[in-house]
């Protein structure tokens, strides 16, 4: 925070492991966007891994305890807790939800972290901060470079909306928060079928074939809907759709699809010549910061695998 200039709102910030590594452009663009919108963002000191899916998969108590400890670390910093990663967001919210409802679990977790579980601080995803706290009207007013002509497939994935009682972000089957933000930025959200389907998540390490199959369906569906690019709000979704895209495009899925077998593995119904094309994947914060006039070298565009710059150049946005 620059002295003398008061921030509109201030948040404590839990970036999560991915944002310091494979999802670094999400961190870079989040910081740039918050600065552009005059929102304060202060990282929780020495936060650690929330446990993500592997921890709750085999040991729920461990997962709850890790999150509860992180929530109490977050109390050191003022402001609601801003979380960018959909998995961290889901785990932290799940912990608050479970421990509020279940006294036995809370007691066990409090023993594990040797202290009281602190459940009072609101945990908010970046989407929620943009659309609700900052507000869509104000977001629209702040746009300096509207993303005109950019057709975007908004991809929610799993954990932003499911299970319905935990994230409290939007409707669990037909959300609109991403599309609303895109409209405020001047972009055009497309209607498509796979915005709520799973990308294969953490199977990217253990069983990449699963990711190739599921992410292939998502990329195909977005291309059928004539989207220029996909917008995500989760570093794992981004990793699967971006990092694995080249192998999906080159080699197809392990089994191949029926249409793929008949028309050749690259056949995409609905596209002009049936060919698959590269689909840039953006984080919501990259598109929002671009629309706010943040210089393009501060969006982390150079660290993604599928280069989005030709598309932005074509649309006169670079």
């Amino acid at each position, binding site marked *: 925070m620059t002295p003398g200039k008061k921030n509109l709102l201030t948040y404590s910030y839990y970036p999560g492991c991915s944002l310091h*590594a494979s999802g670094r452009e999400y961190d870079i663009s989040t910081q740039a966007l918050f600065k552009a919108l005059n929102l304060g963002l202060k990282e929780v000191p020495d936060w650690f891994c929330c446990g993500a899916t592997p921890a*709750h998969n085999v*040991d729920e*108590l461990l997962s709850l*305890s890790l999150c509860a400890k992180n929530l109490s670390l977050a109390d050191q910093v003022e402001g609601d807790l801003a979380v960018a990663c959909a998995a961290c967001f889901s785990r932290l919210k799940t912990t608050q939800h479970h421990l509020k409802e279940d006294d036995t679990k809370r007691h066990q977790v409090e*023993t*594990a972290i040797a202290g009281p579980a602190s459940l009072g601080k609101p945990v908010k995803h970046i989407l929620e901060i943009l659309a609700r706290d900052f507000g869509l009207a104000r977001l629209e007013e702040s746009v300096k470079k509207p993303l005109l002509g950019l057709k975007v497939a908004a991809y929610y994935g*799993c954990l932003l909306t499911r299970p319905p009682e935990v994230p409290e972000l939007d409707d669990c089957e037909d959300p609109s928060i991403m599309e609303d933000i895109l409209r405020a930025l001047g972009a055009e959200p497309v209607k498509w079928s796979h915005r709520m389907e799973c990308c294969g*998540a953490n199977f990217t390490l253990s069983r990449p074939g699963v990711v190739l199959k599921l992410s292939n369906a998502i990329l195909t569906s977005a291309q059928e809907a004539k989207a220029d690019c996909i917008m995500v709000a989760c570093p794992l979704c981004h990793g699967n759709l971006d*990092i694995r895209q080249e192998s999906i495009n080159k080699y197809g899925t392990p089994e191949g699809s029926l249409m793929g077998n008949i028309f050749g593995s690259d056949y995409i119904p609905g596209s002009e010549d049936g060919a698959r094309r590269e689909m840039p994947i953006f984080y919501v914060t990259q598109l929002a910061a671009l629309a706010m006039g943040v210089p393009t070298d501060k969006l982390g565009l150079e660290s993604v695998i599928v280069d989005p710059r030709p598309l932005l150049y074509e649309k006169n946005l670079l």
Partner: protein
Amino acid sequence: MKNKLMHLSNETMNVGFVKKVEALSGTSVRRCFQCGKCSAGCPMTGFMEHPPNRVVRLLQLGQGARVLAGRSIWYCASCETCTTRCPNKVNLAAIMDALRKLSWDADGPSKESYVQLANRLFIENIRTYGRQYELRLGAAFNMKSGQFLKDLMLGPKLLSRGKMKLFHQKNKNLPEIEAIFNRIEEMRKKGEAL
């Protein structure tokens, strides 16, 4: 098991196991009336020998061992679609978590070892480094699974873009993390937690 009749008796049914699953997951398998919505929406059924609704049916019939022997539980992506859509509020994602925990504690009679290995390394990483250290995660997975060349071409791409760090991040809370792990182990030893 496909074309074999299943004989149900006190000897072939393990009701105690089902009760454990119900206690761990906080949900009742008896609420399920087999509408199949969970399996219809599940993105992973293609990889499973028992689709989610059959997992619940097998539990209703006390056939926990059959579920654990397969790879279904390890191919669940925890996407929560089943839990979201269940008309009877059976928290299937939590049941899957409970089944994985029981299989994990029994040191995994399951066929699926890669997912278990990845989970083990991920949790080890938390205990050792506090935050995920992706280079170690990938390298250790390749070494221990014997797939030495898996995703090798991705490494330089990720490193050159700063998406993978050579060294792990330091964290002041490491002793506290270790203490959490130890306290949980202690609680389990004393029987204060499942």
